[in-house]
């Protein structure tokens, strides 16, 4: 499953782009997504570890299975307000 993963804040700067494409093999969990991003894009690994993953605008735990066509984003610790 090909997924376009949205990036924000420092991760966007590190990647030099607004998103990265990853090819996610089964099981398509948040945990697998984290591993794939970290191995494909090592520069994102440290920031990724501190970030939450959102799937279709909901924070999801590592064991959550990402449905096909979902909008996926890496959410670094937020600093609005």
């Amino acid at each position: 499953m090909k997924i376009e993963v949205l990036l924000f804040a420092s991760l966007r700067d590190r990647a030099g782009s607004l998103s990265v494409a990853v090819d996610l093999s089964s099981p398509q969990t948040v945990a697998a997504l984290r591993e794939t991003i970290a191995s494909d894009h090592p520069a994102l690994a440290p920031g990724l570890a501190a970030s939450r993953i959102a799937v279709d605008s909901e924070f999801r735990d590592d064991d959550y299975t990402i449905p096909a066509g979902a909008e996926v984003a890496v959410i670094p610790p937020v600093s609005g307000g």
Partner: protein
Amino acid sequence: MTADNAIQIELTKTPITSDPLAARVADSGAGATVSFLGTVRDEHHGRAVDRLEYDAYGSMAQSEMRKIAETIRERWSVKRVVMVHRLGMLEIGEVSIGIALSLPHRVEAFDALRYAIDTFKETVPIWKREYFRDGESIWVEGS
């Protein structure tokens, strides 16, 4: 579940002023209106700040803001709530966030307002970039 205009959520690139916020939660059954405004300070941990930039994951930010609004209306007797966050570049003294809510009585007002801003700072995907007077700029992650 929610009356007309009971919940008003906004991300905006234009300056936030406080008056419309309080006016927007007016309700003939409300005896108390409280509001919180966050403003850009001229320093951060002792380092001079020139301006700030806010970026958001817009669709999710609005959905998380709505969750906060719904939660305070469920948990406390909040009548109406407006929650606005500014995006883009802000100068010192400008308002980055405005939250106003109205309730029948004041007793619950402070807990509801505190919950709203505290939760906002944990869950809403918005990030601040600080531009320091010395020329450096950094994305702040975590508050």
